[in-house]
């Protein structure tokens, strides 16, 4: 069946931040652009709708950013979190271009605001979108449509016809039918595969059934699969992903920011057997929350419980779901279905191991335990003031890191090392080039914006 879409020079797959930056940038280069977004209008924007900031290099105060954040410091931050699992050339390119990305977005009419309350130490490094990711998407969609980009919602690309590193047509499911769309060039900006249950189960086994997906249910990885099957070189480990510990009561998809819990450093975390398994006070929560998704994923049934007592309950951001409360550890154990004797033993052992110190929730304080395995190394106070509060934790997956390899022109590299003739990639589908593991707040949006702009420009130039 012939496509209802207009014949375009550039087809952008995915209407999140990366896709829109690509579409706008291609349209401004004079190309005709069709953008295919798999979500309906109301849920457009992929994971970008849940984001709130991007990390940008700046030599002096810029937009809402204070002080300066130079390329080297940015790179070192990236190196630390990825433990070297990054393509240095692409990482440095991302960092260099992040400064102009910020100005470009600002010129398009994107509004920024100072760092939000409850975001520790990000006002210097991260520029926050006023109103968050949906507001950013609203502005970018408006700019794209004004620039002549033809946007189609509920349009899911399910296959790419690849031949010798070249894509000449796409298969699109749209309005209840399957269509073939011919194109001169393609920008793949369709995200990871975290919302694809079957693929996640292939990678994680049955544990995947207990994962919550923090973002869009539309990132099913079909384009990523098609590219890899079509000969694109893969980058990243399929198990690597941005996984945080979130409230177990959050919805399966799209829970977004409000499902987060900030209570972990202020109490203890036990598994369903009632036992601790990691140092809850290793570092400030914003620096640690992204490792706890994986930690909880490794526990039986992929569930854990953060337990705090009354005296620290106001030390962390309010949660959207109320805590389970009880006046004794036994009653709490019953309420969360954890063996009471084990939990009591864990709490007693922990309380006995707490050393005297000056508690300070805003500093790496001297409050720790001694002789436990594992010890809690900061903010360790005895759990002794009822009511006791429990928050159930599950792994919350933001996005997967497995992607296609790209070069500095955002061209998809084929398994023979040669760049694709006309397929470009931007955003989470290629973020693994820069983020092999770990995470540095706001980097995903920077990669999406930088490579989106490059991909759009390159794809447009190809058709000249």
């Amino acid at each position, binding site marked *: 069946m012939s496509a209802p879409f207009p014949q375009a020079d550039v087809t952008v797959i995915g209407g999140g931040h990366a896709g829109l930056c690509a579409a706008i940038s291609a349209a401004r280069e004079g190309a005709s652009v069709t953008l295919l977004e798999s979500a309906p209008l*109301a*849920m457009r924007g992929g994971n970008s*709708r*849940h984001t*709130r900031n991007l990390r940008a290099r700046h030599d002096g105060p810029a937009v809402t950013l204070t002080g300066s954040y130079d390329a080297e410091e940015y790179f070192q931050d990236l190196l630390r979190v990825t433990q070297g699992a990054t393509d240095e050339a692409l990482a440095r390119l991302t960092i260099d271009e992040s400064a102009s990305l910020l100005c470009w977005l600002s010129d398009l*009419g994107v*509004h920024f*605001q*100072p760092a*939000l*309350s*409850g975001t520790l130490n990000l006002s210097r490094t991260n520029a*926050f979108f*006023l*109103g*968050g*990711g*949906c*507001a950013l998407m*609203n*502005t970018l*969609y*408006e700019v794209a449509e004004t620039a002549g980009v033809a946007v189609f919602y509920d349009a899911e690309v399910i296959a790419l016809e690849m031949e010798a590193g070249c894509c000449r047509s796409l298969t699109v499911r749209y309005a209840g039918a399957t269509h073939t769309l011919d194109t001169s060039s393609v920008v793949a900006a369709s995200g990871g595969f975290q919302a694809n249950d079957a693929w996640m189960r292939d990678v994680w086994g049955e544990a995947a059934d207990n994962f919550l997906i923090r973002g869009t249910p539309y990132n099913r990885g079909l384009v990523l699969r098609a590219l890899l099957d079509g000969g694109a070189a893969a980058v990243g480990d399929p198990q690597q992903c941005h996984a945080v510990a979130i409230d177990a009561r959050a*919805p399966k998809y*799209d829970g*977004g*920011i*409000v499902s*987060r819990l900030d209570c972990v450093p202020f109490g203890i975390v036990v598994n369903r057997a009632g036992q601790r398994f990691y140092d809850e006070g290793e570092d400030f929560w914003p620096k640690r929350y992204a490792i706890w998704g994986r930690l909880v994923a490794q526990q039986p049934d992929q569930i854990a419980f953060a337990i705090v007592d009354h005296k620290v309950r*106001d030390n962390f*951001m*309010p*949660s*959207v779901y109320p805590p389970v409360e009880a006046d004794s550890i036994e009653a709490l154990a019953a309420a969360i279905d954890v063996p009471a004797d084990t939990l009591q033993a864990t709490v007693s052992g922990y309380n006995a191991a707490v050393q005297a110190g000056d508690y300070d929730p805003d500093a790496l304080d001297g409050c720790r335990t001694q002789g436990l395995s594992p010890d809690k190394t900061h903010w360790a106070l005895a759990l002794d003031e009822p009511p006791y509060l429990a928050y159930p934790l599950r792994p919350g997956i933001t996005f997967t890191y497995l992607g296609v390899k790209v070069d500095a022109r955002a061209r998809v590299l084929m398994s023979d090392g040669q760049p694709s003739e006309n397929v470009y990639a931007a955003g989470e589908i290629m973020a693994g080039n820069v983020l092999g593991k770990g995470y540095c707040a706001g980097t995903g949006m920077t990669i999406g914006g930088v490579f989106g702009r490059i991909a759009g420009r390159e794809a447009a130039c190809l058709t000249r």
Partner: protein
Amino acid sequence: MPDALTLRDTTAEAVQMLTVCNACRYCEGYCAVFQDLSHYRKVEAQDIDYFANLCHHCTACLHACQYKPPHEFGIDIPRALTATREQSYADYAWPKPAGDLFANHGVIASVVTAVCLTLVLGMTMWLNPAAAETHTGPGAFYAVIPHGVMAATGLVTFSYGLLAMFVSALRYGRSIGVRSGDVFNYANLLRTTHAIASMRHLGGGHGDGCNETDAAYTNRRRYFHQATMWGFLLCFAATCVATIYELGLGRLSPFPYTSLPVVLGSLGGLGLLLGPAGLAWLRWRRDDPTSPMDWSLLLMLFTISLTGFALMLWRETSWMGALLAVHLGFVLAFFLTLPYGKFVHGIYRGVALIKFARDNP
């Protein structure tokens, strides 16, 4: 008036939604609601009347919301706070039973207007055979309606409106925790006055304005609202100056076209034609869940201005008597319904902004 169960439901819904907002905080840069919300550990039912009157239904937060319908959280703060805001108008009304009037403000405003028009027009024409004649020069209006009658009627009805709104403001302020010291505080007053005068919050936090029918920002509503507010204040000023002229300087209306009362009143009148017409146009275009209350206020302000201009233009003809009666009929109806319609939003919002200024120095 909604029964107790509905009332609890709307408040409970607003509490639930704001609890989600407080865990998200993405909208912190938009308006006072979200800036102040970040100081709350837990949103309680008793906080809702305050937030409800800080919200001005600009819908910026709705357009930016990742949890808006069809998301299963279904967050829609403008709708939730509009429902509780309208409930708060009824709850704090004075005297208390008059709160029921809000629910049918449109109907009541129409009936009151009709009665006032009939009374003023009928009595004028019936009691005063000279009303249909041409009168010119100082004191011409009082040849139609005696000065004492006009002044007494206006004074009594307007004073009643002011008193009712003053008592409501006191009750509302006490309920949300505003003390007299907060009101008589230079810094609080300055910031509140500035926020109202500039309609800062209708600027959307970035100055580009709020949303209307779609995700695009526009300052239209801010400007039309400013025209309405400044128009009203200029007309009020014109009335005050005219009163000083008449009682203090012994000069009787109608005043010359170039006199201060007429110039102020004409400028204000233009604002009251343009502003309400614009606001009604914007409201008509967007799918707005708010009650018909603002329609009646907008229509009344527009009509008062229109009849005022008609009176000014034809005041030297034999139509003057009828035009004066019609104009005064509308003014009288406006005064009588003042404390039980959309006009009160300015009062409650002002009090809420004082608390906001106090808590967000």
